[in-house]
């Protein structure tokens, strides 16, 4: 296709503003799929994505669209819809020249709208504003246009759309052609293609999704990944329409995928540049950085026999997930397992769920934690991704924790409530601005460890669901942190250790001890629970000894049933971990996350 007739674009939106539905409509309207073939949200191909209604992995679809007598190739590059995958979003946007900025006509601009918009502007994309859901009775397109103006987007000629009802779709397609510039690369230069996604296929190896920026790439080419320096021979190329269609080449500006007998996505990092081995480009495309896990958690098989299966499952998941890291770890309490690193909490939950669902593993996962940078008094610097491994307080000069810059958009009535929440989570106020006369945007610096679990839920509940949140990492910051240990029956349970702020240690320790008291079932003997910092006990609770555990009735007609009941109870106990004779249920290891719940 002639470069002037190519348009590469993404759809960016706050969650639930209708991105996937609009994508489906564009595919349907251009006849790429018949409506009979359309399953809702065709782009979200993983089962989990559909269930959770979120996009985890990006995809690209080629659409053909006729505009004023000429045929255009429109490449729609889908972007993940969660803050954990911000880097992946930024790379997908880098592969485009334009973005549809979708805003819900009733909800208006939200935190993710802004975050995505700024990311698109950073990549010099042309913005095509789309106001969606205009069919809703509560739709207020005029107000949304005003809000768009406030954030620097000319919304006066925004396309008014109902993706659900199919209203305004043609207009959107026409605007993509008119407002998004064609790709500008040089077909004669050495090959440079941006990897914006990759996915493992068990027959073909890794499928590498690329946008060709300069030059062209053909089947049979010997290519090199500039960051990993790995070389492969291209065996197959294709585009998605959205079913895969083979092609023999991709030219400057085009989007598609290739396969090259690549065994693992670790070799094909998102953001890396593909070039030819024999005629390499001088400079890679800008912006690549290796995936950096932000959240760590211990993964332990409940049945220690499953350790090998867990390792295999993690290895398989890693083939398709360059951001997942794991290393063997041993816990005195939980035995042999792995410390796994994730981009964020959603990423962690998805991986855990896939391990349990697709690989039939029963796991104990420890509470997630962020990674700390610890400077010892000797000057040595450690990266600590497991609270149990934090050195003794006396050896530590400084502990730094990751912080984020968070933007929170809220109706102005709730500014006070949001500020209170941010304070509770050790936030530092940086800015307050107004989107219009009823909505404001608050900016805070917050420790990542304080917001990764229930901050969003709290934010929603304190603003009656109106506030929205987006954040990006903003470096490390020193804080007065200490390790809090939990002792059961006098023994430290390493898997329950956490790192907390000194000022909150007492309160957290008490709350955690109480929570554990409720979660740990009564045992044959009394079980003291202690929270301690170093050798100082800061909270104490007791699980009283079980008084009675006895079947009241057991007669002739009942014996088989009662025996099965006993066997089932026994099976339930096997699913608990025994630490120093104390049986601990799985939920207890996540208790720290729930101490703030009422």
């Amino acid at each position, binding site marked *: 296709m002639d470069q002037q007739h190519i348009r590469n674009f993404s759809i960016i939106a706050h969650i639930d503003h209708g991105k996937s539905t609009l994508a489906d409509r564009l595919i349907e309207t251009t006849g790429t799929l018949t409506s009979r073939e359309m399953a809702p949200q065709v782009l979200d191909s993983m089962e989990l994505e559909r269930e959770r209604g979120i996009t985890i992995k990006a995809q690209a679809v080629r659409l053909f669209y006729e505009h004023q007598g000429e045929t255009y190739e429109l490449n729609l590059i889908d972007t993940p819809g969660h803050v954990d995958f911000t880097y992946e979003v930024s790379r997908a946007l880098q592969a485009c020249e334009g973005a549809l900025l979708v805003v819900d006509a009733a909800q208006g601009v939200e935190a993710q709208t802004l975050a995505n918009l700024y990311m698109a502007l950073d990549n010099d994309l042309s913005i095509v504003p789309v106001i969606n859901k205009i069919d809703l009775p509560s739709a207020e397109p005029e107000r949304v246009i005003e809000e768009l103006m406030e954030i620097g987007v000319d919304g006066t000629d925004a396309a008014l759309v109902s993706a659900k009802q199919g209203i305004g779709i043609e207009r959107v397609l026409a605007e993509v052609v008119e407002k998004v510039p064609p790709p500008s690369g040089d077909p004669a230069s050495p090959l440079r293609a941006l990897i914006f996604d990759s996915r493992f296929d068990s027959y073909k190896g890794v499928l590498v999704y690329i946008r060709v920026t300069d030059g062209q790439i053909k089947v049979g080419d010997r290519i090199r990944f500039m960051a990993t320096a790995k070389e492969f021979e291209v065996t197959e190329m294709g585009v998605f329409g959205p079913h895969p269609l083979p092609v023999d080449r991709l030219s400057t500006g085009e989007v598609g995928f290739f396969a090259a007998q690549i065994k693992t996505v670790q070799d094909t990092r998102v953001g890396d540049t593909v070039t030819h081995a024999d005629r390499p480009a001088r400079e890679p495309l800008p912006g690549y950085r290796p995936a950096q896990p932000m959240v760590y958690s211990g993964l332990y098989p409940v049945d220690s026999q499953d350790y090998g299966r867990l390792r295999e499952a993690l290895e398989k998941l890693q083939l398709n997930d360059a951001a997942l890291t794991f290393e063997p770890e041993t816990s005195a309490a939980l035995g042999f397992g792995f410390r796994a690193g994730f981009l964020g909490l959603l990423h962690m939950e998805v991986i855990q769920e896939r391990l349990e669902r697709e690989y039939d593993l029963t796991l104990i996962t420890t509470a997630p934690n962020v990674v700390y940078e610890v400077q010892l008094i000797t000057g040595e610097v450690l990266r600590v991704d497991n609270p149990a491994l934090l050195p003794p307080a006396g050896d530590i000069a400084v502990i730094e924790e990751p912080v984020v810059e968070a933007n929170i958009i809220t109706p102005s009535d709730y500014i006070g409530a949001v500020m209170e929440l941010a304070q509770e989570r050790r936030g530092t106020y940086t800015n307050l601005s107004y989107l219009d006369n009823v909505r404001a945007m608050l900016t805070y610096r917050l420790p990542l460890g304080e917001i990764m679990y229930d901050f969003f839920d709290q934010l929603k509940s304190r603003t009656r669901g109106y506030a929205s949140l987006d954040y990006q990492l903003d470096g490390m910051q020193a804080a007065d942190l200490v390790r809090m240990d939990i002792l059961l029956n006098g023994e430290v349970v390493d898997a329950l250790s956490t790192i907390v702020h000194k000022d909150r240690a007492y309160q957290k320790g008490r709350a955690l001890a109480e929570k554990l008291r409720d979660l740990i079932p009564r045992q044959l003997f009394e079980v003291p629970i202690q929270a301690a910092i170093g050798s100082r006990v800061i909270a104490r609770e007791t699980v009283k000894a079980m008084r009675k555990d006895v079947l009241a*009735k057991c007669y002739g007609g009942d014996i088989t049933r009662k025996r099965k009941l006993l066997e089932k109870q026994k099976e339930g106990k096997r699913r608990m971990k025994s630490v120093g004779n104390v049986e601990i249920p799985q939920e207890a290891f996540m208790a720290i996350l729930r101490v703030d719940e009422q």
Partner: protein
Amino acid sequence: MSPFTLPWGLYVHIPFCQARCTYCDFNTVTGMGEGDHIRYVEALVREWSGEEIPDGPMVSIFFGGGTPSLIDPQLLAQVIQAVRARVPFAAEMEITVETNPGTVTDDKLRILREAGVNRLSIGAQARQNAHLIALNRIHDVAAIDDTVRMARAAGFANISLDAIYGLPGQTMAEWQETVEGLLRLGPQHLSLYALIVEAGTPLQQQLERGAIRLPHDDVTAEMADWAEQRLTDAGLLPYEISNYAQPGYESRHNRLYWQLEPYLALGAGAHAYVEGRRWWNMRGVRRYMEMVEDGRDPMDNEEKLSRDEEMREYLWLGLRQRRGVVRMEFQDRFGRDPVVVFEPAFAALNEQSLVTVSPAAIQLTRRGRDVANVVARALVDASPSEAHS
């Protein structure tokens, strides 16, 4: 003693009830009439005629329910006659009828006594009318007293009373009032049960809705401990986890269950056990009757215990009794000493002070009786050691 000469008994299930108690998940039906009762008892007699009679002495018949006392006592008499026609009764023969105080008259009790019934198990449950109403019992407190008085007058010298503790909203004082009230009636035997909330019962639904609340576990435990002390003082000794008797009045029938002795069973949903084989009938009353009338076996299903399983059941059931498992009896039955066969399990339980092992018997300690399920769970799948020849 070979299993072929073990004493054995017969369970007869009478599923009919006037109303269903909120906690009950037994196989019961309400709303059936006298015609159904007659037809059902005919089926019982016919089922009996096909039963294979074990070799040992027959020591017990137990009419359970449901509410056996609901139906015409002549019908129960017919069953007893049919049994007697095929089997000689041992001298100590125990014939028990479960009795609901809301269903009896002087005449009924006299007819039962004359038919050979020598033990009544009367469901008293509580001595507060509010609790009886809440449980959907069909009688009041006065009816309990009347029933016992009538039973004595009819010549019953072996009377057992049932009561439940841990009832929704029940206080310790109420429980004490119940126990004291029952003791004043001079029973030979008492069964005191902690309330079990069974799935699918109205009780469970009420709890789920939050309409009622159970006492705290610790309070229920106190109730059990208090009653054990009180009954022991009154000369009613705890011979099983939930059962108390004057010496010599321990239920012969229930001991069959706890000692894994054979029992046959008649009626819908009834369970039988002989020599490691357990089988049970269809639960549906009409279905049961139709099957028997068609001359077909009303059996629903069966399980066969391996030798190891039988040994394990013998142990966890036997340990429910205060006498425990008598090592010689186990040896006679299985040819091996239980302490040797399950050495690791008993060593661990002994270590935890849950059982005591003496040369004569294995018994639960006081703590072991409180947490008998811990012991039972350790035994339900314990591996036996290999037999040494």
